[in-house]
């Protein structure tokens, strides 16, 4: 199965911007093991591109959810609770991660001290 065909299959697996289970199962039944692995990997990549994960240390509120949904209008936003984040949040958009928290500030201070003082 070449890359072009795989791309076509992945596009076909979506219906109204959501993965369609029936279509996926139909496609999966017709693939051999090797192609099925490629197909699954392709679907994961496609989902990763379309999804934004927002991690916060506390439960999200509706205002914040609406605000973030507006920024990423063309993507699916998933909210997760991550207690390790100290006073901040982490947004993962495909390959890009934006992290805003107190730990980063403290790490920046330590790094700056290390660079400027012996």
């Amino acid at each position, binding site marked *: 199965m070449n*890359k072009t065909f795989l791309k076509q299959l992945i596009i076909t697996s979506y219906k109204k911007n959501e993965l369609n289970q029936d279509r996926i199962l139909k496609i999966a039944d017709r693939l051999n093991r090797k192609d099925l692995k490629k197909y699954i990997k392709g679907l994961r*990549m496609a989902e990763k591109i379309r999804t934004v994960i927002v991690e916060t240390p506390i439960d999200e509120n509706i205002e914040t959810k609406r605000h973030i949904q507006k920024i990423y209008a063309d993507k699916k936003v998933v909210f997760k609770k991550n207690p390790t984040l100290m006073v*901040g949040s982490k947004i993962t958009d*495909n*390959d*890009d*991660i*934006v*992290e*805003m*928290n*107190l730990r*980063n*500030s403290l790490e*920046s*201070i330590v790094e*700056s001290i290390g*660079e*400027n003082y*012996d």
Partner: protein
Amino acid sequence: MINSEDILSKLEKRLGAVGTGVKKEHVGTVISNNDGVITADGLARVQMGEMVEFTMGERGVVLNLSEDSVSISLLEGGTNIREGDKVKSTGKLLSIDAGEDLLGRVIDTIGNPLDGRPKIKKGKPMPLEKIAAGVIERQPVDTPLKTGIKAIDAMIPIGRGQRQLIIGDRGLGKTAIAVDTIINQKRKVKGKKRVICIYAAIGQKQSTVSQVVDKLKAEKALDYTIVVVAGASDPASMQYLAPYAAVSIGEYFMEKGEDVLIVYDDLTKHAWAYRQLSLVLKRPAGREAYPGDIFYLHSRLLERAVRLNDKNGGGSITALPIIETQASDISAYIPTNVISITDGQIYLQPDLFNLGIRPAINPGNSVSRVGGAAQTKAIKSVSGKLRLELAQYNSLAAFAQFGSELDESTTKQLERGKRSVEILKQPQYSPLPESLEIVSIWSVTNGFLDEIPVEEVGRFEAELHEYVKTHAGKLIEKLDTGDKPDEKTLGELEKIVSEFKKGFK
């Protein structure tokens, strides 16, 4: 009296400039780890040659960009990297911190100290890959770089800013020539800048590198030398990048107006490391399984050896690349590539080495394309005849083997040639100042050694040097100026050599 308010306000200012706590990362996921090359997906915006960092802090450099994945060559460690691990881009191209603190240190390709001494202070980051200075920024090579080796300074002179290849089979003294050249830079030449030396050991045994470092330390040459090591047990990526690290450090000093000498020991192993890396990266293999850009690998490295014009600081980088041949085959792939790039070569021959002629330099096959422009007038005036006389001697010597009777002038030429060959022999780690080189060469080309038995020439020369240093200090100073010796100076030289010869037993 220190004002605490001042200190606190300064600290607050610094804290304000530290960062807002927002960290942006561009990440990917490891798919596979094969032979020191990591394949990762994601990292869609990463650049070629960019440094990346893995979860446990290991660093790598991006060497292949494909549609769906990125190939990363590891610079350190990597046995713990597994499928699914995160890799993040640093946003920086591969660079090395260069500074005065590097002098006297032994470091690896990415600047980590290997000599057990304290951490090196952070310097100016110099990119490993850089386009060489253009034509307009350069000036011709016209300042000598003295090696202290008579055969080279007289017949194959090297100038500051030149690329001079040292080529020969294993064990013929290629590294010895380079080390002697570094040791000779200890000698301060009036009116000339100091020369900072960088020795890049690529794919060498650790024991060999250790010997070189010890020798440099013993000769007090390490104080102005930096040793960059990517040994035989280091990853191919480190061996591939080591010469570029060396030239990047050299460029730091050159940009400050200094003269730098870089020894690449050796580029054959460098080509092997690049071949290994390219094959693992699945790049198409060409002749002898080398990748298609093997010429570019060395040309872009050696083009960075340059003599800048005064407007750009007047600094220079002189390159002494070393190539190891197999069975003296200088027409092989890598040797011919590098010969075509450099401004000349010093060819070492095993026959000469086995005959006891050391350094085993074949003056017939060696050349310096800069030539006399890289010599002082002093040495040029005495060594002009030498190369021709040696060439004539070599052709006559072959003829004389047939044992036929020879006329007087031929015999005289043969005897003179034997003594010229003998005078050009030189022990290792004994580079000579220009004045003593002139004394030796002038003595032989003017017939002062014609009556001395060939086997006594070495002793004659050593004792002559001592005699001249003791009895003719002013003459030595005059010869060291580099100016063409006038009649008076030549007269003094003749007098002192004749005096010594009378008393020589």
